[in-house]
């Protein structure tokens, strides 16, 4: 409603020929990658102002988590960024383990690293597919989905689900890898670099691709910092920041990998960074698989980790002094988890995903706060679109790699 009033105010007292042109894009527009609504102020075909409106996919995940216990909360995390749910599971589990002061077995750490890197490949493949489709390359879309299907089949063997995995649990993972899964993963790791070369042959030097991506949405390193960009969008601007390197979690301190950075900070650089990341993820999976054979037969869940079913309340009878009776026995609520707060952040495929949890001693989080990359990236759209054409807007939404389930929560 306020938007309409604003438009009316701007149009008042102006002749019809000098009125700005307003256009509503979304929320059902196919290239907004979900239910993002953009309110555009145009001058000809140039964007003067852009106002992103979110909230069409709000499910209240943070509030829902307050009525579920810690392991049940991980089920909700699948629905944040539904393309890379394994990475979200890891973020939640890391925060809860910090709160519980749990030590995760090494095999579970390696498995978590593998699944979260698989999630990165899945997410980047879907990003490349839809980004290329938006810009006009159909073949890349089909090739990427073919390879993503392979990974989803591996996920299905690992945990029995293709998209909403719920694979990680507090203290480890839910199920060990079967030997066939490791064989299949080795086959994938061998084959995948050839597939990346195929995508690059198709679009890397293609003149249409270059014209649509070079010098579009240029963000300098300082601007990227100020806008709060993280992940490949920040690295495309030339800032070498990666949570996996700076605050290593799981098994990332054991493996070798490079952090790719771009130079110009345009759409093409961000594309390049993600393509190199695909290769690096592939390499990380290979190293982890080699290390997995060292820990054959070990447990994948810490012995003192909480059960899936946590009691709501535990009462303990304690003796208290009483003036008349001498001593009185009174039931008192006991702490199930330590009182306190914990924070964990991971490098999810889209950027930095952080989870902050406050516990009051009961089996349910008192408050859960999630910082998701897509939400911050959407707030950068007005800055990045200024002065560009409408057709470039599609490329800009694509290059930020936003998922609306992630931003609206």
């Amino acid at each position: 409603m306020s938007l309409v009033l604003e438009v009316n105010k701007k149009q008042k007292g102006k002749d019809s020929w000098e009125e700005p042109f307003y256009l509503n894009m979304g929320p059902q527009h196919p290239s907004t990658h979900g239910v993002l609504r953009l309110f555009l102020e145009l001058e000809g075909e140039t964007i003067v102002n852009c106002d992103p409106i979110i909230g069409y996919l709000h499910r209240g995940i943070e509030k829902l988590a307050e009525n579920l216990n810690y392991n049940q909360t991980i089920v909700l995390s699948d629905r944040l960024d539904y393309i890379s749910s394994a990475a979200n599971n890891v973020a939640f589990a890391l925060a809860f383990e910090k709160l519980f002061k749990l030590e995760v077995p090494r095999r579970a750490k390696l498995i978590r690293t593998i699944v979260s890197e698989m999630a990165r490949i899945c997410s980047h493949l879907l990003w490349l597919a839809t980004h290329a489709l938006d810009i006009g390359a159909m073949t890349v879309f089909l090739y990427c989905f073919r390879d993503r299907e392979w990974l989803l089949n591996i996920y299905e063997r690992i945990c029995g689900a293709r998209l909403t995995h719920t694979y990680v649990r507090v203290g480890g993972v839910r199920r060990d890898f079967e030997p066939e899964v490791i064989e299949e993963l080795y086959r994938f790791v061998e084959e995948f670099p050839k597939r990346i070369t195929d995508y690059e042959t198709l679009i890397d030097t293609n003149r249409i691709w270059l014209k649509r991506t070079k010098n579009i949405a240029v963000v300098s390193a300082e601007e990227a910092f100020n806008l709060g960009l993280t992940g490949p969008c920040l690295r495309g601007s030339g800032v070498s920041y990666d949570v996996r390197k700076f605050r290593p979690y799981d098994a990332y301190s054991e493996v070798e990998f490079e952090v790719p950075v771009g130079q110009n900070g345009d759409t093409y650089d961000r594309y390049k960074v993600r393509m190199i990341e695909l290769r690096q993820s592939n390499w990380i999976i290979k190293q982890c698989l080699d290390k997995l054979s060292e820990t054959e037969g070990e447990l994948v869940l810490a012995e003192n980790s909480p059960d899936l079913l946590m009691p709501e309340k535990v009462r303990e009878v304690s003796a208290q002094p009483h003036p008349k009776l001498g001593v009185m026995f009174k039931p008192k609520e006991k702490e199930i988890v330590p009182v306190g707060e914990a924070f964990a952040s991971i490098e999810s495929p889209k950027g930095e995903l952080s989870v902050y949890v406050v516990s009051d001693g009961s089996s349910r989080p008192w408050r859960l706060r999630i910082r998701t990359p897509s939400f911050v990236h959407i707030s950068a759209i007005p800055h990045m679109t200024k002065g560009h054409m409408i057709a470039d807007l599609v490329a800009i939404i694509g290059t930020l790699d936003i998922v609306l389930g992630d931003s609206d929560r």
Partner: protein
Amino acid sequence: MKSLFEKLFLIEILKGLALTVKKLLFEKPVTIECYDKVIPQPYPGFRGRHALVRSELTQGPICVACHRCERVCPSRCIYIKTVEIEEEGKRKRQLAEYAIDASRCVYCGYCVEVCPVNALVLTEFYQYVGENREDLYFDQERLLKNWDEFIAKAERPYFNPFWKPKGIPEGFFSIVKRKAKGV
């Protein structure tokens, strides 16, 4: 000079075309003729339609009405009703009604994992639809029927991977689960 040559003869576009033509002529198609010739089979452990294991002794469910699945369910879609009966001078709790609302279920498989007697299973059957809400509200008879439909085609003895996941410490399972061999 090279750049002019590339510009004139569309080298990079020809390279891309060569790749797609090569894939078209010399590689097998990736797509499958679904439902006409090949029906995609999920891998063991796929979390699909719910079923209650039918006991061979009583021809009913082996559920002991402990309410663990009801309490662990994140979407709270399991409804259990119990009755208290007296048998040989002892008061016993017995299952009266077991129902799952499949339209609310998120298929996390927690219920299968916490069940102490392996009475519940998420089968590998995934092709099911409902024309109205009642079709997706599985009551006890429907859940047992689901099991019959599933086990007729499955390999015996059947053991769901989530009944006793590999690599989890023994202390997390009840004695029945530790000794379970499959049905």
